């Protein structure tokens, strides 16, 4: 039997297997595509605007009204209602009508003008972390500004000019530069990892499922025979059509993120295309490794699923790896997505020379050759396997 015809014969056989079951289309094309569209459209605002907030104004004076008016003019805060007391505002927060409120107690203006140092309070519902932090930022600025406004009045009344007044009220100012994502865009921050994460999950599951269903359906013997009992050839030929489809899906998300949405890709598209391609191959490699090591469809599929789902938090894009317990920090090295995330930070976000990411690319390649360790077990299983539900 000639090598080439064997390979392509298996490719053809696998393609028609994939085509004949809606399951493959749903999980390889529909599922990732749905998530691509979902995440990028969900956060299309980038940074949430007009977050609903409330005010409890017990003072009801010129000062308190100006605070409210100014607060409302911030892009991220929208005062939706005024509440007559604290309890009412808290209940509105429990009903999820507002994410936070500003409390101005009675006598604020009087105390301020008689230099008695009144206190205004900011309350946010930290159960919803993102809107809570954003509202806090606006409200805090507003509180400081209100204070500064009063202070400025006092100072200018004593004859200081504006420059001197600011130099007195805030001698040292912080100037924050967010490298690579100056807009603090959440879509950039989340979609850049969520999209490949979903794809990795699907690659891990589909790879493992398709290999083990040969064993389950009792077609594995035929499959091995077509490859001349060469398990490496059998597996690579079988996975080739899937690689093509998944690589195309990776191309789709790259085009969506860096082409259509124009997210920062500071070193151009090639480093990311390479990373995405290696990510697909690394995930396939990892799945083959698991599928060979565990001779049970359900258990190996469970492990692949766990790995795919867990790679989202453990890649460290939302909660940094350095903040996790040490055991999990060590575990994070075993997830292909972790390396992809590090490459993305270097190559797309920060645009630094590729040498800095060389190790991460290498690690992805290592996942690809990982199955060489145990793939012979799969050959054995193909000949002797019995399906257990």
């Amino acid at each position, binding site marked *: 039997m000639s090598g080439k015809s064997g390979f392509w014969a298996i490719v053809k056989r696998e393609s028609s297997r994939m085509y004949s079951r809606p*399951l493959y289309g*749903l*999980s390889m094309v529909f599922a990732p595509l749905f*998530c691509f569209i*979902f*995440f990028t459209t969900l956060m*299309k605002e980038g940074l*949430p605007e007009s977050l609903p907030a409330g005010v409890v104004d017990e003072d009801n004076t010129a000062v308190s009204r100006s605070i409210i008016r100014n607060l409302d003019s911030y892009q991220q805060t929208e005062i939706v209602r005024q509440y007559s007391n604290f309890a009412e505002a808290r209940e509105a927060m*429990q009903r*999820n009508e507002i*994410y936070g409120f500003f409390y101005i107690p009675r006598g*604020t203006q009087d105390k301020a003008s008689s230099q008695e*140092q*009144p*206190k205004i309070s900011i309350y946010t519902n*930290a*159960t*919803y*972390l*993102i809107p809570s932090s954003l509202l806090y930022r606006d409200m805090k600025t507003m*509180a*400081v500004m209100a*204070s500064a406004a*009063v202070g400025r009045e*006092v100072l200018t009344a004593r004859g200081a000019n504006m*420059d001197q007044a*600011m*130099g*007195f*009220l*805030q*001698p*040292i100012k*912080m*100037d*924050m*530069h967010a*490298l*690579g994502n100056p807009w603090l865009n959440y879509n950039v921050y989340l979609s850049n990892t*969520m999209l490949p*994460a979903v794809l990795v*999950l699907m690659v891990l*599951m589909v790879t493992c*499922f398709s290999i*083990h269903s040969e064993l389950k359906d009792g077609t594995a013997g035929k499959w091995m025979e077509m490859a001349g009992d060469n398990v490496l050839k059998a597996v690579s030929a079988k996975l080739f059509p899937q690689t093509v489809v998944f690589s195309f899906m990776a191309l789709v998300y790259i085009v969506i993120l860096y082409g259509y949405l124009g997210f920062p890709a500071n070193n151009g598209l090639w480093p990311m295309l390479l990373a995405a391609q290696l990510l697909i191959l690394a995930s396939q490699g990892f799945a083959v490794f698991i599928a060979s090591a565990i001779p049970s469809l*359900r258990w190996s*599929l469970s492990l692949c*699923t766990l790995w*795919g789902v867990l790679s989202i*938090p453990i890649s460290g894009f939302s*909660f*940094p790896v350095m*903040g*996790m*317990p040490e055991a*999990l920090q060590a575990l994070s090295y075993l997830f292909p997505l972790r390396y992809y*995330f590090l490459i993305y*930070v270097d190559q797309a976000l*920060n645009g630094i020379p590729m040498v800095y990411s060389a190790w991460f690319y290498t690690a992805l390649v290592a996942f690809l050759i990982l199955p060489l360790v145990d793939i012979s077990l799969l050959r054995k299983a193909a000949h002797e396997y019995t399906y257990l*539900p």
Partner: protein
Amino acid sequence: MWIKDMLDVCGKELRKTVSDVGVLVFFIVVPLLYPLLYAYLYGREVVHEVPVVAVDDCRSTTSREFLRKSDATPDLRIISYCSDMEEARNLLHRHKAYGVIYIPSDLDRTLQEGRQATINLYCDMSGLLYYKAMLSGCTMVSLEMNRDIQMVRLSGMSDREKEVMTMPIENEYVTMFNPTNGFQGFLIPAVLILVLQQTLVLGVAMMAGTEEERRRRGELVLGHEYDNPITVLGGKALAYLLVYGLTATYVLCVVPWLFHMPQLWKLPTLVTFVIPFLLASIFFAISISFFVRDRESCFLLFVFVSVPLIFMSGISWPTSNMPAFWRVFAQIFPSTQGVNGFARINTTGALLQDVRYELIALWIQTAAYFMISLFIYERLYRSDKMPGIEFVLAMRARARRNVRNVRVAVRDIRSDIEEAAERMRGRRKK
């Protein structure tokens, strides 16, 4: 007697559940362990001691004080003092540090002239928590130092006068309900609810897949001995409800307790809310389980859904800022109401009237999914076929037909164009 039949079905379903390791993994093992893993993962709530580097071009007492105090905050740790930005950047690139504090050379002079001085912070944006840590750490230090500078300048006044002068209106910040303002308190309630719904879906779908496999082999699996499909459906739902009563108690009450998370619920509120959530999830699971053809395909079809579902709940990206389409779409899933209701009952101590909307929505979902599963089940009952698959195959056939029609139409249009072009060319020749 329909009650006897229902209990009969319930008993059989329970026996089937217990004897199927795969289903037990979903119903018991995953809910038992998975939340622990997540709680462990986010156990430290916030990041402390983010490594940063300092570039001090001023080298004065003030600049050194600023850096020393920044290093002393719980948020930051200065790992190196670099001579220039180039060196600092190199450390950033090698992931040794996540931010740079740059103090310009004119800091002291500007302060002495009584003008406003600027300190520049550069932050790696691979995680927003680095940004948060850096901003809050340095702001804290600058506020403290500003106050000291002002005190020195106002040396003629009394302490009280100084205080009033520097901060005419004070402010305070209270993060309600999640006192550490951390990840665990915000994400775990959502994860817990999602674990309940998704394991139910996976377990029920796995059983349905197994039945379908047996049906294909010609074994009779439906409860034909019962006359009424409602009793079969009700019996199954009762069985799942019994199992998930236990699972939910553990997931929603024991897990948060184990990790010392806020638990402000009152028992009647929690129970009244969780029962419709479980019922809605159960009938939702039964409804979509009809699309499953074999035991293991539930993994491929339903696991990935968890990822968008957690975002649809609005726990991360705020609901008020979602496009209308997704806001409406999210309403079909019990988890959306479940997460919002549970997070507020558990973490903010909301009462039933505060989660009225979620509660009503869950009962509507229960009714709707019950009707859907009844409808599909009835057809299944009569025809012994898989209506879900029939539907998918019919849709695919229709799509293929459409593609063919489009192809024909394109061919027609193309030949029309070619004809027209031909005519144009002929006319030009003339």
